């Protein structure tokens, strides 16, 4: 009996380990493939999968930095990165200006109708870019902003503001009311209490919003593809897949290097803030 239960537990552990390994392999494989491709010599890279004797998973020739050198030296990758960051920072600024007051207002000052309104604001996050890019393309050409990064600065907050307002509302609700109330008893105005007491306490929440808005901007593809046509003004997520491919020729080494260099830092930063994002999605469903 005891031996059987020990055997069962051992089998359970093996199954558990195997499950974890399987999912890890599935998740990481494309990234592993990016790493291998980024550092392989072309002679090692373009062999063709029909050659069974040539194992593509390992370096058959010594690794090389050529692809990275091409990416940083001969392509507009750094320009795209700069464009993305400029747009990102402006969007973060706009998002904070709009979402912080709105989040606080919904958490503290509006009562019952504010609660309904907050759900309405959250639902606008569900209106997809693939529905709005057509009307936006009209608006953008009316405003004369075709092929300008300003079009992205104006439009990107449409997806950052709703979700960030929602996140911040939850965050402000989590702060004890007594803090502002005692400040107001001591002669502070409501606005003064928000500025001097609430905002400093809300720094972790604000940081989450900054990171969230920034990652959303870096990930965005549809609007950027629709509105930006000249290669110098592209953002990373469009420049790499659209402009690094010259005609029909794919420079896979540099392409994968660009994917890797862009994705990994975002993934690292994102993972630190993940729990807060998930809390934003699951408000109400977990207690």
């Amino acid at each position, binding site marked *: 009996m005891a031996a059987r239960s020990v055997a069962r537990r051992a089998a359970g552990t093996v199954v*558990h*380990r195997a499950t974890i390994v399987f*999912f*890890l392999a*599935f*998740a*990481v494989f494309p*990234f592993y493939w990016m790493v291998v491709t980024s550092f392989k010599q072309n002679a090692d*890279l*373009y062999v*063709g999968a*029909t050659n*069974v004797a040539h194992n593509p*998973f390992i370096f058959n020739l010594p690794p090389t930095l050529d692809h990275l050198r091409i990416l940083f030296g001969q392509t507009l990758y750094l320009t795209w990165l700069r464009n993305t960051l400029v747009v990102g920072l402006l969007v973060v600024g706009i998002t904070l200006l*709009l979402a912080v*007051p*709105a989040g*606080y*207002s919904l958490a*503290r000052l*509006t009562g019952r109708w504010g609660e309904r309104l907050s*759900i309405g*604001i959250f*639902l606008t996050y*569900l*209106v997809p870019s*693939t*529905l*709005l890019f*057509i*009307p*936006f*393309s*009209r608006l953008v050409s009316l405003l004369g902003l075709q092929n300008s990064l300003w079009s992205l600065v104006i439009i990107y907050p*449409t997806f950052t*503001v*709703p979700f960030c307002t929602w996140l911040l509302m939850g965050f402000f609700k989590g702060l004890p009311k007594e803090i502002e109330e005692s400040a107001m008893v001591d002669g502070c105005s409501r606005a003064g209490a928000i500025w001097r007491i609430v905002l400093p306490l809300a720094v972790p929440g604000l940081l989450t919003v900054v990171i969230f808005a920034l*990652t959303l901007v870096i*990930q965005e*593809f*549809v609007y950027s*593809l629709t509105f930006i046509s000249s290669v110098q003004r592209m953002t990373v997520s*469009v420049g790499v*897949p659209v402009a690094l491919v010259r005609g029909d020729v794919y420079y*896979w080494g540099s*392409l*994968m290097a*660009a*994917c890797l260099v862009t*994705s990994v830092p*975002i*993934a690292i930063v*994102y*993972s630190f803030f993940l729990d807060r994002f*998930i809390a934003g999605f*699951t*408000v109400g*469903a*977990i*207690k």
Partner: protein
Amino acid sequence: MNTTTVSAAPVLHAGQTIRRADRRLGVFMLAPALLYITLLVALPFLLALFLSLTNSSAGSLEFSFVGLQNFKNVVASPVFRRALRNTFVFTFVSQAAVMVLGNVLARALMRPFFGKTLARFVILMPWAAPISLATLGWLWIFDSTFSVINWLLKVVGWLGPGQWYYWLGDTTLGMVAIITIHVWRMLPFSTVILLAGLTSIPNEVREASAIDGAGTLARIFQIEIPMMRPILTVAVLFGVVFTFTDMSVVYLLTRGGPYNSTHVLASLAFQDGVLGGDVGRGAAVAIFLVPVLVVLAIVMLRSSRRAEVV
């Protein structure tokens, strides 16, 4: 009697003025965000509806009303019907797979093991990476000449001499590839949400079910999954929204090909409305996303209300 009302009045009055000032401040603080959302989400949404009723094109700002003509043309087109079907197939199959795999993975992550923090980070990567760049990675994996999958299949003998899979040149294989990417990308998101649901189930529930003689399967299917229903709903809803409305994967992987057989609504709307310049038609295609989104929004509202009541 008289004195009590007099003494009560100033207090009430003071309370009201603070409230009124707060309310004014509240409206003032909310107005910019609300104005922005109205101008740049609500109005464009209406503009999309409006454009779908016109023959508006990318070249000029002139247009005239054509009624439901765009919708008639769109529905009559086999490419559109194929795209509509694909959108549902991709969403349904990938979300079904994500739900099964996500439950398995979330359970596996509940147990302590060596390197759990790192494992969690790695499992999360597909969701954090920009979708266009991740799809590019998969494009290389599915490459017609250099596909590593084909190499593996050759080595294990699945593909005999002369046999070959053209992943993106074949409708069925292309659909398999697209679904694979959707599963790969959405799995971390659902897993993390499900994990939050699993950890919120108190341990006493598990202990009590063990004392009452419930086996593992009975516990999972009769106790834990029913308890996790609200959180499962959240995971499915967002998973469906993100998959149903996505165009990046199809656009970058197959461009809707071969022969427009792997298009989804979003990528077809882009092809017709932006690349093809037929704004009215593109808008009409995209409008077909709306009914599903409305249903999802209603389900979401209902479940959030239920969560508040219970």
